[in-house]
């Protein structure tokens, strides 16, 4: 102690400052955790979850929470760590660092409880091909302890929801891809779980089947907590109430699909389609508008031209200009404001 004082007083001060900030930090994170725990509807909380495969870091410091009633979309490029995260939440893989709580149960301390709570559809929906659909579902029911009258009704419920009634006696390996995926879903929901984790549930399905699966998810979303991963961004807009984007194992964005869209570059841009008359003047006025970032022009044929306008501010002064132009000889055919695009935002944050 003494030689710190005598040798380098500054060093001591710096050290004090350091521990003080550390203390503040830990306090604030503690506070955050308490707040999360207070909320009884929080079903999943991950805390600095990480996983390495050898020297490769698949998931790093991932923290997020999901509540009941939420449908959380997991987005990210291939190999970003989506599946790895799901495998950790379902206790298939153990995390290299951090942990997670599922409905209050720690994935490290009580994996069996967590597995009991979760319904999980693994990537590519692996199934025992030599079994019939009914045998397979009965197997899952037996493991999950569903039997008797309640077992029969839950079997009926999940078969009805996934429309598997006609193929119950067929061997799984003889089924088409869409049916196999539905069998995977049926086993995931057979115990009416409060938490559903679906790894690319619509991958490889035709548009009708995709629609069916989305409808199913929407139907169940009210009282459950659902996490699904997907590469199809429209799907996120359609079914997810919230989305997180993971890139290189790290969380890069967390918000609603609308928020993401509004943050993309094209959000707030204006599409303007005009007729032939006064095109040159229109072009000149638009390009000369103060605070215009960019004007793209595209000929649509039959004399129509589409302008994409990127104003710097969204204060509406551009609209004033456009309505003024309308009174001239130009003919405005359509006018719309872009909400922004999810794929643009996705590319921006993951590249």
């Amino acid at each position, binding site marked *: 102690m003494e030689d710190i004082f005598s040798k380098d007083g500054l060093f001591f001060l710096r050290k004090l400052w350091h521990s003080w900030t550390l203390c503040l930090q830990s306090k604030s994170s503690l506070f955050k955790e308490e707040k999360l725990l207070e909320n009884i509807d929080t079903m999943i909380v991950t805390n600095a979850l990480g996983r390495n495969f050898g020297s490769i870091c698949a998931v790093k410091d991932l923290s997020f929470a999901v509540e009941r009633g939420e449908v959380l979309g997991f987005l990210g490029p291939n190999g970003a760590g989506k599946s790895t995260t799901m495998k950790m939440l*379902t*206790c*298939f893989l153990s995390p290299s660092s951090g942990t997670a709580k599922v409905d209050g149960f720690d994935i490290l301390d009580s994996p069996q409880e967590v597995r009991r709570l979760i319904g999980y559809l693994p990537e590519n929906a692996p199934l025992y091909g*030599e079994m019939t659909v009914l045998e397979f579902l009965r197997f899952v029911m037996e493991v999950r302890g569903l039997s008797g009258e309640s077992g029969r009704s839950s079997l009926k419920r999940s078969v009805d929801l996934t429309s598997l009634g006609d193929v119950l006696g067929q061997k799984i390996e003889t089924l088409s891809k869409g049916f196999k995926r539905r069998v995977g879903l049926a*086993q995931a929901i057979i115990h009416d779980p409060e938490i559903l984790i679906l790894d690319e549930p619509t991958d490889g399905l035709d548009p009708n089947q995709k629609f069916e699966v989305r409808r199913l998810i929407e139907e169940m979303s009210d009282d459950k907590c659902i996490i699904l991963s997907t590469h199809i961004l429209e799907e996120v807009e359609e079914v997810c109430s919230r989305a997180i984007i993971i890139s290189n194992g790290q969380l890069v964005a967390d918000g609603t699909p609308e928020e993401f869209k509004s943050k993309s570059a094209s959000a707030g841009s204006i599409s303007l389609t005009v007729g032939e008359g006064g095109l040159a003047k229109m072009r000149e006025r638009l390009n000369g508008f103060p605070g215009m970032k960019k004007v793209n022009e595209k000929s649509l044929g039959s004399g129509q031209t589409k302008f994409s306008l990127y104003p710097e501010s969204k204060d509406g002064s551009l609209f004033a200009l456009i309505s003024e132009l309308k009174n001239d000889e130009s003919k405005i055919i359509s006018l719309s404001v872009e909400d922004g695009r999810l794929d643009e935002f996705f590319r921006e944050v993951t590249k």
Partner: protein
Amino acid sequence: MITRSFRAVFRRELTSYFATPVAIIFLTVFLILSGFFTFKFGNFFERGQADLQPFFLWHPWLYLFIVPAISMRLWAEEKKTGTIELLFTLPISLCEALSAKFLAAWAFIGLALVFTMPIVFTVNYLGSPDMGVIFASYVGSFLMAGAFLAIGIAISAMTNNQIISFVVTTVLCLFLILMGFEPVVLTLNEILPVWLVDHIVNLSFPFHFEAIQRGVVELGDLIYFSSVILVSLYIGAIALESGKAD
């Protein structure tokens, strides 16, 4: 110990043999081969003795190919098709799943042994054999099959390739047989000190199997087979736990 998850996996495994022609083919091959060895190589009739020694003599060699054929798929297939992810995200512990798979396969081999019963009736018809010896030999054969199987299931847990699983298991088991195979032991005696050869022979399958075939199931032989089984299963559990991800 017998939980519902264990029961479910055990039943699924056992019925899965009969869902495909595998079970019928396996049982047929096993019975034909054991009959062929007994009557052709074992000179069952010619030796004129009412015992089943020529029948049991060939069991280690029979198991050498038959058991890896059963064990090769047990985990390798689950890893290849990804169903292991399904299995281990259901409320099933590693221990339950592993022991259920092992016991189901062992029961299946036991069934094959039961189907060899006609040879017991035959030998009873021809003379009056020592039934105690025959019973002990069946117990020994079943225990030895379990040891083969446990090694096979451990190897299967290490790979997702069934061919590799089969070949490695066969080679390992071949070693365990050859260590007690007379021509090999005689050669070893010439190059190694006797105490070492004794230890090597002591670790082999035939040494303990033949001991039981004499009609006495001794504690040492029981400990030998059960420790091979338990150690192999333990290694298999470690391999599964650490290798689930690949």
